[in-house]
């Protein structure tokens, strides 16, 4: 890709960037300490564990400045908009906008106690959530953060105004009303339909009083896209933006209501070519980087020795292979499921890992869930128990033969279905320039050839159009990535529910619809997990998709920085930017 997208802000979304990594030795390195780090690297993942929350913890001195890297120039300041919903923009905006909940590196979701006194679901029928805002929480111009802000952020994201190009309406569209009391410091949200992941709402809120100065909701929403925030509800305020938008300087917010902020200033510099980031770090032009890991990048960081600290973790993103059930063979009502199951049974995920991700992360293992990743509460193996991804070629051939398929195996003229129709050549797509995905697809194709199935592997430079099958684009099989979130219930629903916005392959199962709906509507974690796993198992039985592995993340910075750490959630490393500092 061009790099195109990076990681998502909020919600699960597809990773379209290409990480062409080839080789990296596993390093045993030092982990976190209570005095920051002493340099060096590690590729032992701690994401999803409590160790991730305390990595590089330290007591910072007061004062100083840090320069951090982002990979896009600041073209859009409204991360709630469809166009602005980009990881890099969110890294900057995290420092300026208040959020009700924090997504931690351990994947735990905790209430932002600097903004809120409490947040409780006071009723389930109708679902009602009451937020109490800290009395001293104000925007940097002194205006109190209050219910008006919640109301505005709900109105622009609830989908009632079709002209507002919001990134997501999930959850907000379930809300019936948002009202304020106690001088606006108590906010009551009443839901018309239950939404279990209510903690995922009211993240990165924009100031209502500023919105009022710029027209109606649509106009103000667009204004926030094109203009740096003039006020801040976070630990920093915007001081300046360069004319070419490659750098943003933030200074400490003088009206910050939370724990004292150690840094005087933080500068975000855009380095749009990830390959240049280690050099910029080595030349002290930036103090920290967060690129997608690639062999060359990691080798450069290794070469810097203990002058820098770097960490490779397994992230929330994961690669997977999907079938398009709109294909007449793959989606055949009679024998399509058998065909798909055989194809995934013949797929050897360990071989794929060995050729791809294990080249630079030897500890990587196959992922056995679509809904959750390792480290998330409730993760379990919903894949291999059905024989998928095991590379058991003989079993796959036997499956096809027993079902009445003819010419099973290579060199027999091509697989024929039980009804006598020839199994067509399947077009398998991957993002152009992504060597790892090319290797994955090539291996898959060679395995399918052993079943008598021809798979033509072709790149696409427009994954979006390919998945949505628009503009003459399309696919039969595709290799791409989703990114999980700390809210798997609501995040997965659009991907596997009949007619869901992310259900590109046309999957439909009434039971899965029901289980995912139950999970999304429930606030009880065990109910969510139970229903997600049931849905996941059904999707495996239906052989719609095959999860492959979790994508790694990479962070590198000078050891003089404390409280800087990897965060594989959509909030990213700047989730705690107000705690960043220099070693005392």
């Amino acid at each position, binding site marked *: *890709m*061009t790099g*195109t*997208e990076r990681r*998502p802000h909020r*919600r*699960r*979304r*597809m990773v*379209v960037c290409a990480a062409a990594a080839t080789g990296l030795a596993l390093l045993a390195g030092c982990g976190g300490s209570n005095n920051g780090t002493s340099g060096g690297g590690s590729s032992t993942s701690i994401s999803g564990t409590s160790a991730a929350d305390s990595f590089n913890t330290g007591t910072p001195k007061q004062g100083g400045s840090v320069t951090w890297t982002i990979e896009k*120039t*600041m073209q*859009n300041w409204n991360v709630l*908009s*469809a*166009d*602005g*919903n980009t990881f890099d923009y969110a890294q900057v905006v995290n420092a300026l906008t208040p959020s009700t909940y924090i997504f931690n590196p351990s994947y735990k979701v905790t209430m932002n106690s600097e903004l809120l006194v409490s947040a409780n679901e006071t009723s389930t029928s109708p679902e009602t959530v009451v937020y109490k805002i800290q009395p001293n929480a104000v925007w940097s111009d002194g205006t109190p953060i209050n219910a008006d802000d919640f109301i505005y952020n709900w109105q622009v994201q609830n*989908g009632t105004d*079709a*002209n507002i*190009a919001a*990134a*997501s309406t*999930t959850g907000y569209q379930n809300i019936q009303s948002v009202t304020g009391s106690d001088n606006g410091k108590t906010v009551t949200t009443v839901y018309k339909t239950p939404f279990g992941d209510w903690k995922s709402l009211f993240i990165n809120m924009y100031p209502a009083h500023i919105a009022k100065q710029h027209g109606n909701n649509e106009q103000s929403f*667009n204004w926030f*896209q*094109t203009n740096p925030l003039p006020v801040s509800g976070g630990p920093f305020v915007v*001081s*300046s933006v*360069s*004319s*070419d*938008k*490659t*750098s*943003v*300087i933030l200074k400490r917010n003088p009206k910050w209501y939370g724990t004292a902020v150690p840094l005087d*200033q933080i*500068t975000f*510099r855009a*380095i*749009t*070519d990830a390959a*240049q980031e280690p*050099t*910029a770090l*080595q*030349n002290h*032009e930036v103090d920290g980087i967060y690129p997608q890991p690639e062999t060359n990048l990691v080798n450069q960081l290794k070469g810097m020795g203990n002058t820098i600290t770097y960490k490779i973790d397994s992230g929330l993103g994961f690669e997977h292979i999907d079938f398009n059930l709109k294909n007449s063979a793959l989606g055949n009502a009679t024998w399509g499921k058998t065909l798909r199951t055989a194809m995934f049974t013949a797929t050897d995920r360990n071989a794929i890992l060995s050729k791809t991700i294990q080249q630079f992360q030897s500890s990587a293992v196959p992922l056995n869930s679509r809904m959750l990743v390792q480290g998330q509460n409730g993760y379990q193996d919903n894949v291999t128990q059905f024989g998928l991804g095991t590379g058991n070629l003989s079993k796959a051939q036997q499956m096809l033969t027993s079902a009445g398929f003819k010419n099973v195996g290579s060199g027999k003229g091509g697989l024929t279905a039980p009804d006598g129709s020839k199994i067509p050549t399947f077009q398998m797509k991957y993002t152009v320039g992504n060597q790892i995905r090319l290797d994955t697809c090539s291996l898959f194709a060679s395995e399918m050839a052993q079943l008598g199935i021809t798979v033509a592997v072709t790149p696409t430079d*427009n*994954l*979006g*159009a390919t*998945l*949505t099958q*628009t503009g003459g684009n399309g696919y039969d099989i595709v290799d791409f990535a989703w990114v999980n979130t700390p809210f798997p219930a609501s995040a997965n629903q659009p*991907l596997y529910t009949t007619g869901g*916005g*992310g259900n590109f392959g046309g999957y439909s199962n009434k039971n899965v619809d029901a289980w995912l709906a139950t999970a999304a509507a429930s606030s009880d974690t065990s109910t969510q997990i139970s229903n997600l796993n049931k849905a996941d198992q059904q999707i495996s039985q239906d052989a719609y998709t095959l999860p492959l592995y979790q994508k790694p993340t990479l962070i590198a910075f000078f050891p003089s920085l404390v409280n800087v750490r990897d965060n594989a959630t959509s909030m990213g490393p700047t989730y705690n930017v107000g705690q960043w500092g220099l070693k005392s």
Partner: protein
Amino acid sequence: MLAFALRRLLISIPVFIVSTFLVFLLVTWGADPLGQLKAKNPPPSQAVINQLSDQLYLNHSIPERYWHWFSQLFFHGDWGPSVQQGTDIGQLLLTSIELTARLVILAIVLAVILAIIAGVVSATRQYSKTDYIITLIGFLFLSLPVFWFAILLKQAVVNLNNSANWYGISTYGSGTPGLTGGAAFWDAIGHLILPTIVLAMSSYASWSRFQRASMLDVLGSDYMRLARAKGLSRRQVMIRHGLRTALIPLTTQVALDVAAILGGAVLTESVFGWQGMGTMLVNGINAGDFNVILAWLTVSAIFVIVFNLIADLLYGVLDPRIRHA
């Protein structure tokens, strides 16, 4: 000469229209401006897609869309909307041109000075050790891929900076944010050094060979022998009679090469992270942002047309033997 210039400009108009239309076709067929947006999950609603399609004039035929772009630009001075909501194409052009101009002008000046020195020395000391060394250096830089040279140079400078514990030469971007006054000036110089060297060296190599050949041609001419025979010093002969004449072809070659240098700046800007015209084009192509691509093409086409015209006119001005009909 005025008539010649006007004729050339008039001919350029249909050339410009055809080239922009062809590029428009290629971009329209090759990319979906809303592709990246549609790829987000959850994808934006159809109403949002429709709204953005209307905004970008996507729901019209290609000739209609081209005419819309053309008329908006030339009759209303509007470059059109970018697919990236927060981008003002006009403003983007201004900042991009300023950055690229800063880089290119300095690179051209450096390359010309070095090429003249190398070409003259090489020609006057033909087949000497000096000539061979200069020739070798010239061919070396001619064969070095710009991208490779830039990365090697960066890494060498980084190692030097680290060993000296001095970070005055920067490897990325056009400036360190937040500086003012003298600090900003010296910082800008520090950011200019590496990309200027890279861009200059690729032009220096061919120009030095060109200058050497031109100088040799002049040195072998009768009037030079006559000037020496009349008793003028070698220095006077070389500079007043020889070099002045030998510079004419180089001057026009430089004018013709400006457009090529703009293209070479794409790679240099990518490696060094300058948000100039080259980066603007690359980003526009990646995003399928046809208005940005066409804006780049318009500016580049104007540069090519103007500098080609300048080259032709300069030849007539510098060489009295040439007159334009």
